[in-house]
């Protein structure tokens, strides 16, 4: 079924993208259609108890690289959440956008692709399949956040989100490679529990934390609000940020015995829970309050999952579901308020409770669910978490438990502040000061109301929800079998603690609403942007310094680099295979060659330099003869003659000497030349000290006679053994000859020449 659904979803994306602007807002119902199918299938799988079959699509069979999918219990719960909330988001988009909005087709296609990526991620059973869909969520979320690409803020936020999540993706890849290697399998369902390397644990936890916007990677999430509200609602509830939680959940059994996993996870969780909560208390933009609230809620999920006890895992899954529902509804509420009043600032908003009753109702229910107030889904889930906390022991766990309690108080506080700020009527102002409100849109109200109702319905069918959560939790920790969610737990310690949390949160929130006047500055995001622009600037400055157009400088740089690269040879020198000279003739000719080469550099006119070069060539020819290479000597003699003629013909017109250069630059050139000479000596001597075998001289001689049918071995090598190379060499010469003919055309007309000269001066 998965292999049927994925193509349907992907083809729908293509269809939407190709539909152009003709369909207007109608793209949204169309985009929701494949998600409806997925939702129905997901529900049927959630209810049925039969284990689902593995589905496999072979990609590269030789590398055992396959797309493998299997619907686990957690996956079917996530499928329902992702597709269900996805449907609401598309309905909401239908009301949110107007018909004349541009780019709705690509937007809806990207949004659907984003849901597909998320679905693929939860369905995946091979780590490589998981990784591919993980990266796909990063890319599509980048496109979605940057949807309003004419705004600088949107572009910056999208870049920030991409850089952070893509860095996480790299960590994930490294982590998956490590763990697949040590586990001996790429299947998630076959990983088992073993003592895995801490490095893999840390890498995978970092990947999860970047995706789930955990401190200090949370800085991309508040910025991601630059996206249209439907995207924020989706991103913050069932998708994207939950991808990290799902990853952490999937690997929690695998790393259960790796201590680092828990420590790192608890660090991320606790830090995000507290810092996110504090951030939410200090914001004035209603959407930002919710965004920071997401950071805090995800921190809670990470903390619970990292604790690793069966009860905590169970609670984490319950909160995962509850959070998806209420957070999506709350974002939709804020988006509706934004569209209908034109502002999201809680200092400007007032008295919306009476002017927007439906919206208020949805917000109240969802906020109460977030705060953990009965009779709502969030309450039951929070109770499970508090119960898990009360069972903890040991210093590390107790710190985590304490933080969860403090975090819950802060959650209630920012929820209270949010509700008071947006909906209450300030007493000293008249009712007429309430924010003016535009008429409501059905698409937005219906979908947010549906999600709001889900928090209540979830509570009504709590025994069912409890079963689903339990089977998902059992997949991660089989001991979770004994737990369930309670509608009314009775007057237990946990309930009393919850009541205390809500009460103190209400008071704190009321104070926060009255007292906090200074807006928090997004320092983290600014730091991230600054680092990126510093890197870009440094790159540009270095490129400007290195690539400034001077050929001599480039060559000097290369020569220095090459010389430095040979320095390691100096440690492997062995002078034994080195002898002074083969013969007296060799020594004499070498001295001649060196002296005439120095003359080439010393003389000031081109003609004398060309003659000196001829002397070098002749000495080299002599060296070839002395070495026993008559073919080389013959060739060199011919070549040298032509080159000297070429110099005289080519450059004879330039009568004046070489241009003078500054002393400093000449000094630098001296040094560079000396350095490279030293390096060449070192490299050659080192190569003599490390011979790797005897040259097969006899075999070559024999082949030359039997196969090549010639006695001059060098010639046979060229014409028989390397015949194709020689053919290529001849081709090069032909090309060169054609090039020289073209360049040596008669003089340019004088006008063209003057123009060219002028251009050169400029």
């Amino acid at each position, binding site marked *: 079924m998965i292999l049927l659904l994925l193509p349907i979803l992907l083809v729908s994306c293509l269809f939407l993208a190709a539909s152009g602007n003709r369909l207007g807002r109608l793209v949204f119902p169309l985009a929701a259609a494949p998600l409806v199918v997925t939702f129905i299938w997901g529900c049927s799988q959630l209810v049925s108890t039969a284990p689902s079959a593995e589905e496999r699509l072979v990609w590269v069979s030789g590398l055992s690289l396959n797309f493998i999918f299997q619907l686990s219990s957690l996956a079917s719960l996530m499928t329902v959440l992702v597709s269900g909330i996805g449907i609401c988001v598309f309905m909401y988009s239908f009301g949110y956008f107007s018909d004349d909005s541009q780019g709705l087709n690509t937007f809806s296609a990207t949004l659907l692709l984003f849901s597909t990526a998320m679905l693929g991620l939860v369905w995946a059973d091979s780590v490589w399949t998981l990784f591919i869909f993980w990266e796909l969520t990063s890319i599509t979320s980048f496109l979605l956040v940057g949807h309003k690409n004419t705004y600088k803020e949107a572009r910056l936020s999208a870049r920030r989100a991409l850089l952070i999540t893509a860095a996480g993706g790299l960590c994930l890849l490294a982590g998956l490679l490590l763990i697949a290697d040590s586990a001996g399998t790429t299947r998630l369902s076959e990983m088992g529990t073993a003592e895995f390397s801490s490095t893999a644990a840390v890498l995978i936890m970092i990947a999860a934390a970047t995706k789930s916007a955990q401190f200090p990677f949370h800085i991309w999430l508040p910025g991601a609000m630059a996206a249209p509200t439907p995207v924020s609602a989706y991103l913050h509830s069932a998708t994207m940020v939950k991808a990290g939680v799902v990853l952490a959940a999937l690997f929690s059994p695998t790393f259960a015995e790796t201590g680092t996993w828990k420590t790192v996870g608890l660090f991320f969780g606790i830090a995000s829970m507290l810092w996110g909560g504090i951030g939410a208390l200090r914001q004035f933009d209603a959407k930002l309050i919710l965004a920071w609230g997401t950071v805090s809620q995800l921190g809670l999920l990470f903390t619970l999952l990292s604790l690793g006890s069966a009860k905590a895992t169970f609670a984490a899954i319950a909160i995962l579901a509850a959070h998806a529902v209420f957070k999506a509804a709350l974002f939709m509420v804020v988006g509706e308020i934004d569209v209908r009043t034109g502002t999201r600032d809680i200092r400007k908003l007032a008295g919306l409770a009476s002017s927007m009753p439906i919206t208020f109702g949805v917000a109240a229910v969802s906020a109460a669910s977030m705060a953990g107030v009965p009779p709502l889904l969030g309450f039951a889930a929070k109770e499970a978490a508090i119960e898990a906390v009360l069972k903890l022991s040991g210093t590390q766990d107790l710190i985590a438990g304490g933080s969860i309690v403090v975090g819950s108080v802060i959650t209630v506080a920012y929820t209270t502040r949010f509700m008071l700020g947006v909906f209450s009527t300030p007493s000293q102002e008249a009712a007429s000061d309430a924010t003016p409100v535009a008429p409501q849109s059905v698409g937005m109200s219906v979908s947010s109301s549906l999600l709001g109702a889900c928090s209540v319905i979830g509570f009504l069918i709590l025994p069912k929800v409890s079963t689903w959560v339990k089977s998902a939790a059992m997949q991660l920790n089989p001991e979770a079998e004994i737990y369930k969610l309670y509608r009314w737990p009775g007057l237990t310690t946990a309930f009393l603690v919850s009541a205390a949390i809500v009460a103190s949160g209400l008071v704190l929130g009321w104070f926060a609403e009255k007292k906090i006047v200074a807006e928090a500055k997004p320092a983290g995001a600014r730091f991230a942007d600054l680092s990126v622009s510093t890197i870009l*600037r440094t790159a540009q400055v270095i*490129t*400007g310094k290195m*690539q*400034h*157009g001077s050929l*001599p400088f480039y*060559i*000097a740089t290369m*020569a220095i680099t090459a010389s430095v690269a040979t320095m390691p040879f100096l440690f492997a020198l062995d002078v034994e295979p080195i002898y*002074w*000279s083969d013969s007296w003739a*060799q*020594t004499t000719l070498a001295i001649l*060659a*060196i002296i005439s*080469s120095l003359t*080439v550099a010393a003389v000031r006119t081109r003609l004398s330099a060309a003659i000196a070069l001829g002397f*070098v060539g002749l000495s080299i020819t002599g060296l*070839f003869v*002395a*070495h*026993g*290479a008559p073919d*080389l000597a013959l*060739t060199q003699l011919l070549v040298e003659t*032509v*080159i000297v003629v*070429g*110099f005289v013909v*080519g*450059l004879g*017109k*330039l009568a004046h000497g*070489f241009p003078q250069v500054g002393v400093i630059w000449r000094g630098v050139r001296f040094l*560079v*030349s000396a350095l490279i*000479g*030293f390096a*060449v*000596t070192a490299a*050659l001597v080192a*190569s*003599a000290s490390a011979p790797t075998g005897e040259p097969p*001289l*006899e075999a*070559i*001689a024999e082949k030359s006679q039997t196969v090549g049918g010639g006695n001059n*071995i*060098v010639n046979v*090598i*060229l014409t028989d053994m390397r015949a194709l190379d*020689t053919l290529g*060499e001849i081709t090069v010469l032909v090309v*060169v000859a054609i090039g*020289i003919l073209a360049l040596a055309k008669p003089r*340019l007309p004088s006008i063209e020449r003057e123009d*060219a*000269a002028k251009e*050169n001066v400029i």
Partner: protein
Amino acid sequence: MSFVLVLTTASLTSVGIYLITSRSLSRIILGFSLLSHAVVIGLLAAAGPAGQAPLADETSAASSANPLPQALSLTAIVISFGLTLFLLALARRQQAVTGDDLVEDDLEDRRIRQSSSDYRSEHP
């Protein structure tokens, strides 16, 4: 390995690099020629001691010089010959156009340098 040949290779390379880092195209070509000499001598030096010419019917394999690097060097000599002549043709052409043979800074690269200093003044 004959140290004389090593020294020859090193000196030719040094002088070659010295010339090739010049602004004058004719000196660059001179340097290039010296560098190709250096490479061939280096190859021969690395391949074994001097000997008799590698002729299968006249010399024994043990007493002859290694033929393989000679064959490789021959290709190198011919190719560098072609390149040198081509460079000479280029130099001649430049002479015809500008009246000189100086290698100016690359315009595109100069633009990159400019953009970098612009960037610095815009984002202090």
